[in-house]
């Protein structure tokens, strides 16, 4: 039973990070309708930037802030250079451009930083576990979860209460109406990409703290896809809940199914679950159902 609770808690903690990255994904989709497959590589870039600054001696919080700034710039640049020209193109075209972007980012990251695993030295968070009741939690997980939650709250309140956030909500709701009221859609797209890049960078940094940073952290960025499908593609609360569920599910599979299917069941479980889930509820928990007419 203790194993069960421990698995669930770890799952929720990791799921918080997924939720943060998934939020960035949903934001891009909601605002500009782009299905982004480059999310994993975006997490890599942010993570490597903050790792580089951290190993140069910059305090962790500051290097995280620097990676946020660089993520913002890169996000705006990506949108302006690549995605801006594709407004109104077929879905497959846009998806493949994001695939191309993912290769470009990945190749660049591998070329600059190599493929060896790097760790944050000295460790950012203390190594000993914290005891809460009967369960032990690693401090990395706890602090990552707290950081992810703080950022989630910041982002959500950004949408709710600021002018830019409201403009984004309006564009997501009805682009034509928003345009006629003087909201610049291009500006909103750029901001959406910038925020997604920032969220991905923070997510990558936190994940890199848990297991060390290498290219496979980019694979963890792919896990947002099951998360957003679970929650529904265009629902922000759905993304958060989906991220948490995927985190828990992944850890449960690792703890219980590994005995029966040795090997990489932990990595595969979210995708299997997603494939089965899609058969029964293709629009996720809170996604908009699209009614098609000829």
């Amino acid at each position, binding site marked *: 039973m203790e194993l069960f609770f421990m698995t669930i808690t770890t799952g929720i903690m990791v799921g918080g990070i997924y939720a943060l990255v998934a939020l960035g994904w949903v934001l891009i989709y909601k605002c500009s309708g782009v299905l982004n497959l480059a999310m994993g590589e975006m997490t890599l870039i942010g993570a490597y930037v903050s790792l580089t600054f951290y190993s140069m001696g910059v305090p962790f919080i500051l290097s995280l802030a620097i990676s946020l700034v660089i993520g913002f710039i890169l996000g705006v640049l990506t949108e302006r250079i690549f995605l801006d020209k594709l407004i109104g193109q077929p879905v497959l*075209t846009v998806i493949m451009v994001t695939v191309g972007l*993912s290769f470009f980012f990945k190749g660049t990251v591998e070329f600059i930083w190599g493929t060896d695993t790097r760790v944050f030295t000295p460790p950012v968070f203390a190594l000993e576990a914290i005891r809460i009741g009967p369960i032990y939690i690693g401090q990395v997980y706890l602090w990552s979860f707290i950081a992810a939650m703080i950022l989630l709250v910041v982002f959500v309140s950004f949408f709710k209460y600021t002018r830019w956030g409201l403009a984004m909500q309006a564009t997501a709701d009805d682009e034509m109406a928003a345009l006629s009221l003087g909201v610049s859609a291009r500006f909103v797209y750029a901001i959406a990409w910038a925020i997604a890049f920032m969220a991905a960078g923070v997510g990558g940094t936190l994940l890199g703290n848990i297991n060390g940073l290498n290219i496979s952290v980019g694979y963890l960025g792919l896990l947002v896809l099951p998360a957003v499908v679970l929650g529904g593609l265009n629902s922000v609360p759905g993304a958060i809940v989906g991220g948490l569920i995927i985190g828990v599910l992944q850890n449960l599979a690792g703890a219980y199914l590994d005995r029966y299917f040795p090997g990489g069941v932990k990595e595969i479980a979210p*995708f299997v679950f*997603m494939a089965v889930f899609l058969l029964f509820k293709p629009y996720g928990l809170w996604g908009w159902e699209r009614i098609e007419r*000829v």
Partner: protein
Amino acid sequence: MSTTFLPCSVYHQNYAQDHAWWQTKFIKGKMILLALVLFGGIPYFADSYQLSICNTVGYTILGALGVQLLIGFCGQVTLGHAAFLAVGAYTSTLLILEFPWPQFLMDWGLAYPISILVAAVVAGIWSVLFGLPSAKVKGFYLILTTMAAQFITVDFIITQYISQIGGRGQAFSLPPGTIKVGPWVIDSDLKVYLMMLFLVILCCFIVLNLLRSRAGRAWVAIRDNDISAEVMGINVVKYKLLAFFVAGFIGGIAGAFWISNLAAISPEHFPWFWSLWLVGVILIGGVGSIHGAVFGSIFMVVVMEALQLAVLPLADTFPKLLMDFLFIKEAAFGLAICGFMIFEPNGLSYRWWQAKNYFNLWPFSY
């Protein structure tokens, strides 16, 4: 068909002519010339390195044909095609290594050809299994399920279970001389090349023939609008699954062919990267035409080789460039896809079509 430009005063009088492969003498001559170059010129003049490039092109064409069929003709976007290549390759390898073949089949050298056929059927069935969700979902959701196919098949089942069969460790090595077609042992680039030509031409004919039949018309209707297709009385699920089967079948042939060129196969030969690469190939070549798959394969393979040759002289001053060439290749591939999608969304085959039309009407283009 009837997309062919007919010269003045040539008219079709029945449907058979309209659907014929080679409708004018000029096209027939062109095709004979192409066959001469492929079967005579290249094997005679090319050295081993150039032949191996040709083999890579052929392998890419075989893989891309299935993707082209699914994406370009049936509209079912797949990002997991390398899984079916892997299924084909592993089925064929396991059959050759483990199956107790009767001695006379071994003597006649039929083991490998039969295993290619079995591999193709197994890969086709495996593909149908992962195509089943297409009955219910489409678009982005289907992309996700095909991605799941890749991870489940290659990263899980093959890496964790299939690779353990026979206790050989991760890679299955194929001893020299095991790959035999009839009396010939496939051991040189030239023999692989000839086998590749045979298979590529066969698969192109299969796909082209299907496309001018009832199934092909149904696929195109589903691609253009699946709801209207259903209203018109096409059994959408059946034809979608048929498309998945044929794509997997050709993928299986591609995988089973490729083991003749490898000394050993391991799951690393079929990464997710390769699935995306195949989709990139058809996008660069042009979606919705067989030319697209061929041109895209030639372009991608040749450009990547050229890039490598361009990097070589720089290697003395910047050794990192050569060491990390794989990463440069990845980045270049990504940029190439982005560039083609933004500036040339119709692909290379559209340019080819334009050039052909220009010369058809030359010098009086109206």
